[in-house]
């Protein structure tokens, strides 16, 4: 592996709510090499999106990072003030939003919104050059260049998604964070956009953090997979390793309901029981209340890391050999 572009070290992020501190992200660490795609997967509410907005430094008023570092080319984004981090956003790290439908400002032409991003980060570029760039980007994502002069409400859902991807590419970022970019689309469009995104990523050898609850999508785009549960990263490894030999029982249960992107679409992975309350998470392993293999030690102490040639998981009772039908 080459020098990592992005390093996330012990990232923890909390929300302050009326009910108490929600520990949404708890000591998450991973690295991302140049040209690599890492897929973060987990149920809704497991902290995936919280990781994404922490990477961008786009925290809402009631959220704060309580610890850790986000190193982008060696510079810690979390230690920067608003003015410094502004320079990094979009130029070095950009984002494709979860609800792409609403990520475009309804009162401006789509092209202008992309030009705006380009001109902000390159004050010397001429307006004509910026517009040429937009035309090129539109071509890249498969949109007619004439659409740049249209307003968002004139775009279909899939077209908007493409426009948002084009926007995220505008400043040739090193890292792109894609937060459930295709969730709201129908399966056919979803598949097409996914392939295109993957192709663009490969051509530009851009690094990408791909966030989704849909493990089938992760298999298609990622080189490595990180599985999140209740604010923790519980397993991380190469896509094939995780798929063929999951270590953590949670990963195994996710895989057991593996839906195909070409077949029936499952919105949510369903397991028995609910996600734990993140204000007062369970002691020991956070998955123990739902885990079929839970023992006393799981309820008491934090699980150790089990490392199998760079493919690791945090578990007391790691699975030895996974058989597709053994669990559940």
């Amino acid at each position, binding site marked *: 592996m080459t020098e990592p572009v992005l390093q996330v070290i012990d990232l923890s992020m909390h*929300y302050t*709510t*009326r009910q108490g501190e929600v520990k949404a992200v708890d000591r998450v660490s991973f690295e991302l090499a140049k040209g690599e795609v890492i897929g973060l997967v987990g149920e809704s509410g497991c902290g995936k999106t919280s990781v994404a907005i922490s990477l961008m430094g786009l925290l809402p008023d009631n959220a704060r990072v309580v610890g850790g570092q986000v190193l982008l080319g060696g510079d810690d984004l979390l230690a920067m003030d608003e003015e410094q981090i502004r320079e990094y956003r979009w130029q070095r790290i950009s984002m494709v939003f979860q609800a792409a439908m609403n990520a475009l400002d309804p009162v401006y032409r789509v092209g202008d919104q992309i030009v705006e991003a380009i001109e902000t980060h390159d004050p010397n570029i001429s307006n004509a050059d910026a517009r040429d760039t937009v035309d090129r980007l539109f071509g890249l994502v498969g949109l007619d260049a004439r659409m740049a002069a249209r307003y968002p409400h004139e775009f279909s859902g899939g077209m908007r998604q493409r426009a948002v991807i084009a926007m995220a590419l505008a400043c040739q970022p090193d890292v792109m964070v894609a937060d459930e970019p295709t969730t709201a689309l129908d399966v056919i469009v979803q598949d097409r956009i996914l392939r295109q995104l993957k192709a663009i990523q490969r051509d530009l050898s851009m690094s990408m953090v791909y966030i989704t609850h849909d493990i089938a999508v992760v298999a298609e785009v990622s080189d490595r997979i990180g599985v999140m549960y209740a604010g923790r990263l519980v397993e991380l490894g190469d896509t094939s390793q995780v798929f063929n030999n999951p270590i953590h029982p949670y990963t195994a249960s996710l895989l057991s309901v593996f839906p195909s992107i070409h077949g029936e679409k499952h919105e949510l992975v369903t397991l028995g029981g609910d996600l734990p309350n993140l204000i007062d998470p369970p002691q020991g392993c956070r998955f123990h209340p739902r885990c079929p293999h839970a023992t006393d030690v799981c309820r008491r102490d934090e699980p150790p890391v089990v490392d199998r040639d760079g493919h690791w998981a945090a578990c007391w009772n790691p699975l030895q050999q996974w058989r597709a039908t053994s669990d559940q």
Partner: protein
Amino acid sequence: MSQAPETPAPGRDSRLRGNDGEGGAVALTPWQIRAAKLRLGLRGLREGWAVFLESRIGVLGLVVIVIFALMAISHPILMATIWDDATYNPVTGYAFDEIEQPAPPSWRHPLGTDPLGRDILSQLLSSTSSEFILGLVAATVTVSIATTVGAVAAYYRGLVDTFFMRLADLIVALPGISLLIVLSALFELNLFILGVIIGVLGGFGGTAIVLKSQALSVSVKPYIEAARVAGGGRFHIIVVHIIPNLLPLSFLYMMFTVTGAIFSEAVLSFLGLLNIRMSWGIMIHTSNTAGYLTGGTTYWWLIVPAGASITLLCSTFYLVGRALDEVANPRLRRQ
């Protein structure tokens, strides 16, 4: 408070079902269901109250309203105990103990007397209850009409909806006080009639628009459909399922109506267009027509108590309304 105690369709809400331990539900008696509903409703109220308490302005407003209510109550008590009618009657009294009228504040007349020798404090206190009555009449009429119109328009849609909404647009576009001034040229307006007119204008006007859009979002909920499928009559659905869900918002708009009513009354009284014996607006009108108001601060007691009371009570109801709005509208809340 944002979610009214919703009335779930039978069997839809697991919280309302008993559990026999094996996951199978057993039917509950109607009384148990009612008690459960009440518990849910109370929980909603408690949460709403907590949000309301967070807004310092809303709490402050509530305190001010209570103070004004105490003022209203104190007048009959004072009249019955330490104030004699001949001197302190707000309309017919005369302060014989003062040589010149208007007299500045003194121990016997804490806020002085008006140009006609009447005690200002007594006038101020006795007017408080009329303002509350006016506000209550206007708010009740507004909310009764607006809730009905909103629910009916949202349930029937189509022509009924178009008619009421166009009517509301018309009323909203009209300047209300100008209209009341015109009406005062044609009819004798007293406090009660004024309250009813303001209520009718509000009820068919802006409040109806707001409540209709709320009713619309209620009427597409699954339990309304369920009630319809279960054979609930239209009247039954509107009264039992839609209207209860509008009540929190209606209550909120009562606050704004009170502000509008008190304000309008004061302006019309000030202009001398109402057939009312005493009110804060009349107090200022009396001093103004006697030519005391342009004298600056010399005769401050003729305008400041009444003017400040009108402003304070109006803005208080307005601020409480806004605080309730933050309770009812989660999009305005802090996350």
